[in-house]
C-alpha cells in the first residue's frame, strides 16, 4: 500500500513536470476539456434554473392545492365526455364549503380575458381570475402595495382589481397604481392592491405576474353567464394532508352533485402533481438532449487528450525504457500516464467550471440560477473520469513496451 502511494506521488510529480515542460501543448489540449466541462456545467446549471423556476412558480400558486373542475387537466379521458358533464357552479361551491372540514382555504375561480387600459397604456387579452376574498389564502402571494379585495368587496361584486406585478408595471410604469381607476373592457375598476413579483416565467400567462384578480361576482355581473363552470381551489393544511383532503373533497362533491353510489364521478379533482408529471415528460426530454449534445463536446475534448497522450508516450519511449530498466513495473508506468491524463483533464475541468460560474452570472439575468454544489462535484468527477478513460489506451501502450526496444529508441 505504502509503495503504491510512493509510486503515485512520483507519478504526480512526473505528470506536473511533463505538463509544465509542454505548456502550449498541454493548454491547447486542456482547452477541449475546458469547453466540454464548461458547456456541461452550464447545461446542468440551466436545467437547475428551469427546475427551480418551475418549483417556485408552483409554490407561488400553492403546491398543496387541489382544483375541483369539470375537466380533468392531465388525463386521457375523452374530452367530449367531460364536456357533457354538468357545470360546477357557484352554488355548488357554497354548499361544498359548508361540508368540507379539512381544507385550510377554499375559493371559486373563473378565468376570463380582457383588455386592460390605463391612460395610453393597455394590454390586450389579459388573463383575469375572478374569485373571492378567500382565494388569497390558497396562494403564497405577497403584496407590493395595498391588499387583496375584502369579503365586503367580494360579496358586493364591487369594481375592484388586484394587479400582477408585470401588469402594474406595464400600465403604470413609475406611478403608484393604488386607488387609481383602470378600464377593463371599458368598465372602471379601482386598484386595491399590487402583487410582488412572483418570479417565474415557467407558467406563461398563468404566472400571477401577468394576471388581474377581480371579485367573481363582478365577473358574472359583466362578463359571464351565471351558470358558467367555475374551478374550486382547495388548499390542504399541509402536504401530508393533501391526500385526505382530496378524499374528502371527492366525497363532498359527490354529495353536492347528488351522485348515486354506483355513478362515476362527474367532476375531476386536479392536483399539481399532474402538472409536475407533464413538466417532467417535456423537460426531461429537453434535459437529456441538452446533456447529450454538450456531452459530445466533452467527447471531442477526450479524443484530444487521447491523441496527445499517445504523442506523449511516443516521445517518452526512452524515458519509459529507463524507468523499466531500473525497476518500474507495468502498473507504475500505467499509473504515471493515467495520472498525467487525469491531471490535464482535472485542471481543464476546474478552469471550465470557473468559466461556467462566470457565465452563469450572466445567465442569471434571464433565468434565476447559480452553479449548484452537485454540479461542481459532478463536473469534477466527469473531468477525472474523462481523463482516466481517454488515458487508458495510451497508458497501456506505454506499460507494455519492451524495455530493450524502448531503451534503444532515439
Amino acid at each position: 500500500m505504502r509503495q503504491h502511494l510512493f509510486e503515485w506521488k512520483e507519478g504526480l510529480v512526473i505528470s506536473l513536470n511533463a505538463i509544465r515542460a509542454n505548456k502550449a501543448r498541454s493548454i491547447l489540449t486542456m482547452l477541449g476539456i475546458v469547453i466540454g466541462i464548461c458547456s456541461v456545467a452550464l447545461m446542468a446549471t440551466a436545467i437547475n434554473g428551469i427546475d427551480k423556476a418551475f418549483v417556485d412558480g408552483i409554490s407561488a400558486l400553492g403546491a398543496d392545492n387541489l382544483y375541483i373542475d369539470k375537466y380533468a387537466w392531465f388525463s386521457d379521458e375523452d374530452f367530449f365526455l367531460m364536456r357533457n358533464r354538468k357545470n360546477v357552479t357557484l352554488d355548488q361551491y357554497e354548499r361544498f364549503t359548508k361540508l368540507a372540514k379539512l381544507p385550510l382555504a377554499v375559493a371559486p375561480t373563473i378565468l376570463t380575458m380582457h383588455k386592460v387600459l390605463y391612460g395610453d397604456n393597455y394590454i390586450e387579452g389579459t388573463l383575469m381570475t375572478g374569485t373571492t376574498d378567500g382565494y388569497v389564502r390558497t396562494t403564497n402571494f405577497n403584496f407590493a402595495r395595498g391588499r387583496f379585495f375584502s369579503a365586503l368587496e367580494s360579496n358586493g361584486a364591487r369594481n375592484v382589481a388586484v394587479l400582477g406585478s408585470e401588469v402594474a408595471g406595464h400600465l403604470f410604469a413609475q406611478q403608484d397604481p393604488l386607488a387609481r381607476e383602470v378600464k377593463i373592457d371599458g368598465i372602471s375598476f379601482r386598484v386595491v392592491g399590487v402583487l410582488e413579483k412572483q418570479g417565474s416565467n415557467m407558467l406563461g400567462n398563468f404566472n400571477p405576474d401577468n394576471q388581474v384578480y377581480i371579485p367573481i361576482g363582478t365577473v358574472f355581473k359583466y362578463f359571464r353567464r351565471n351558470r358558467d363552470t367555475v374551478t374550486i381551489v382547495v388548499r390542504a393544511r399541509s402536504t401530508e394532508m393533501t391526500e385526505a383532503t382530496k378524499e374528502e373533497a371527492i366525497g363532498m362533491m359527490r354529495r353536492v352533485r347528488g351522485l348515486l353510489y354506483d355513478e362515476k364521478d362527474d367532476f375531476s379533482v386536479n392536483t399539481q402533481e399532474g402538472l409536475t408529471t407533464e413538466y417532467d415528460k417535456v423537460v426531461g426530454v429537453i434535459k437529456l438532449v441538452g446533456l447529450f449534445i454538450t456531452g459530445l463536446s466533452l467527447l471531442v475534448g477526450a479524443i484530444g487528450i487521447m491523441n496527445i497522450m499517445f504523442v506523449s508516450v511516443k516521445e517518452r519511449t526512452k524515458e519509459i525504457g529507463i524507468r523499466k530498466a531500473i525497476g518500474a513495473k507495468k502498473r507504475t508506468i500505467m499509473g504515471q500516464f493515467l495520472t498525467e491524463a487525469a491531471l490535464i483533464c482535472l485542471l481543464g475541468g476546474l478552469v471550465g467550471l470557473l468559466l461556467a460560474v462566470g457565465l452563469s452570472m450572466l445567465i442569471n439575468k434571464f433565468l434565476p440560477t447559480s452553479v449548484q454544489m452537485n454540479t461542481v462535484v459532478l463536473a469534477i468527477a466527469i473531468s477525472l473520469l474523462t481523463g482516466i478513460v481517454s488515458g487508458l489506451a495510451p497508458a497501456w501502450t506505454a506499460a507494455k513496451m519492451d524495455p530493450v526496444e524502448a531503451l534503444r529508441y532515439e
Partner: protein
Amino acid sequence: MNIINLENISRVYQVGSEEVHALDDVSLKIDRNEYVAIMGPSGSGKSTLMNIVGCLDTPTSGSYILKGTNVSDMSDNDLAEVRNREIGFVFQTFNLLPRATSFHNVELPLIYAGVPAAERREKAEQALSSVGLKERMLHKPNELSGGQRQRVAVARALVVGPSIILADEPTGNLDSKTGEDIMALFHEIYQLGNTIILVTHEEYIANHAKRVIRLLDGKVESDKTVTNCTVPNRGN
C-alpha cells in the same frame, strides 16, 4: 557460490522469415565479486547477452539462475522487481531522466523499491557522495559534464545495493581521460566487494577486468582470467 549461472542459453530473433541466432547455446558462470568484461565485435551477441543477464529480455531456451532463482521464465512484473533489486545498470548514453535532478535520478530506484522518503534521502545522498557528486545533487543532467553524468548513473546503479553492476560501454561517450576516471571508479566499487560485468569492444577497457569473455557469432569464443590487468589510478 555462483551469482550468475547461465545454462545453454539461446536467443532467437525472427527477422522477417529468417531466424537469427543472437545467442547460440551459451553457458556461463560468474561468481560473487568477479570483474568480468564481455567482448566481441558488433553482431557477436554481447548486447543480447547483456539484456538477458540484466533481465531486460528472456532467453528463447536455456535457464538463467540468478542468486539461486530461476529468472528465465518470470513474468514482466517479476523481472522488473529483479532488475530493481539485483541489477544496477550503467549505460553508454548515461540514460538519466533529463528533467530530474541528480538526486531524483538516484532516488528513483528506491521509489520503485518502496523505500520511505527519509531512508531514500539518506541512501541517495550516500551514493552520490561515494561518486564524489554530493554537491551537484540538485543539478540536472544538462548542467553536468559527461563524466559527471556517468557518475550519477553509477550512483543510481549502486543505490539499491544490487548483486550485479552491469555496464554497457560505460566509457563509449567519454574522452579517454574521463573514461579512465570512470574505470577507476569501477575499480573502487569492485574492491568494495561488488560484482561487475562490463560490456565493451575496446581492448584497453576490457583490460581493467580480471576475466575476459569473448563472444563471436553468438557463441563463447574464449573465457580467460587476466593476470596482468590494468589497475587505474583515479585522477583528481
